[in-house]
């Protein structure tokens, strides 16, 4: 089987998406961290 279907044209935009995903996660974690430091007794 050939699992490499439509790899090449999609790869750059997917890499861009990966960066976006990890950026969103970091922002989410920072927001949770702010929530903790602001309110945690």
């Amino acid at each position, binding site marked *: *089987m*050939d*699992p*490499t*279907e*439509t*790899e090449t044209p*999609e790869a750059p935009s*997917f890499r861009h*998406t*990966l960066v976006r*995903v*990890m950026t*969103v*996660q970091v922002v*989410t*974690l920072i927001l*949770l*961290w702010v*929530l*903790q430091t*602001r*309110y*945690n*007794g």
Partner: protein
Amino acid sequence: MHPINWIIVVGYLVYVVVDGVRRSKGTTEIEGYFLANRSLPWWAVGLSVMATQLSAVTMIGTTGQGATDGMRFVQFYFGLPLAMVILGVTLVPFLHGAKVFTAYEYLERRFDAKTRSLTSFLFLMSRGMSCGTILAAPAVVFSAVFGWDLTWSVALIGIPTVIYTMIGGVQAVTWADVKQMVLIVVALVGMVVVLLVKMPVSPDEALHIAGATGRLKIFDFNFTLNETYTFWSGILGGTFLMLSYFGTDQSQVQRYLTAKSVPEARSSLLMSAYWKIPLQALVLLVGILVFVYYQFQAPPLLYNPAHEAQVQEVRGPEYRELQARYGQAFAAREVAARATADAPESAAAAAAMDVFLAREADVETIRDEALTMAGEVTGESPRDVNYIIPRFVLSELPIGLSGLFIAGVIAAAMSSIAAELNSLSTATVIDFYRRWYKPVASDAHFLSVSKWATGFWGLFACVVATQAATLGSLIEVVNRFGSFFYGSILGVFLLAMVPRSRAVGAFFGLLAGMAAVAAVNFGAPQVSFLWHNVVGALTVLAVGVVLSRVVPEKG
């Protein structure tokens, strides 16, 4: 519950079934029944992936956990975005490109038939049983809250789900998931809005009260293997668990195999990567706000109404005395909570908080006494975390929204069960019936067998759910056994991507991985289950690579 709420619940159930049956039209072959002819858009698949993972346990158990334990459970999902990214570049193109029906089918092409059959069998055993527990969890709660017989509760959720899954196949499952996901989010957001409106303090003050009790302590950076929810177990163990679940569990793999293309399948998984942690935080926040709300509105002493009724009947005077003490302790705590809310930033804040925590401890002590009494009277586990939110919903939410929430709980259960039934049927028919018993037959024949297989697993789930109380220890054993091979199956799929790895390495590596997890489980029982997946996957990889190179090839 008010008749309008019942109309919402029944109307929703009827709509899902009718829509599911409508979508069955035109499905004449198993490619359409199991994979929707690989034609679904990424956003529908993405919502289906999220709906499958979000079960009724999330709606009533995780929200309850938020009320009692706070936000730290969200750490469990910290590895999910990374896992989705890894899957997007590894297993998704492999499985989608291989044009398989099941993830295990791919293992035969890569290794051999016995590796495929073993992994598929393990999936059928664990998911078949877990499908019953997913159905049992809300059914047991509904049974206690509404006073129904457990069988009727199981039937209310189970029968409509089996009907639309059996008739409509994956098309019905996916499009029902889309609607169910929307319903769930609307119900959760509606609850947050109502809580904030009804709360006698501002949102900022409410969060200060929650924070004072440690419920907003989200991050735990201690590196301990015996603590389940830490930052490190979430990032490392969680990544392996999510890789296993989304990459090798047929109930999830089948969702993205229905996508139009590899990029669409990837995008569907990335939806979870973006939204799962915020959604889980929202779920826990609902519980936290309910906890704060109950600082100003007297909560029941026991949340499980069935237990409460039994205790009142058997040990009435003693329970009433406890209730009186509870009322006094609640009043004192309410005063302390208001003082904490009024002075969150002042110099008196620390002193007010100390008083509040002392009053909170008094309330919890009396609650513990009541729970002990409930355990002694009923002979059952007195733990009532799963009843906190349903009791709140039925007594405090406005008419309409409580019906929406109950429909949301049923929707969450149905979406998970439907996806599992559909995938159990797929594995049964493709990996066993067609592979070993009847390789050649018409599509109409396989379609008919697939529908009967769905019905069989639906019946199996319903029977397990109705026997949940008596099968409790058996289900626990099965779930524990399930953790033995979850990471190990991931290891086999990872091994498949290693060049020159062979069937002998995959099969015996899988057995070695399960043995290693069993050894950790029994030899060091304090190690949290999140780490089991890491041990299993890495053992399979190590043993598989070595055996593939050391054992000579036949012929």
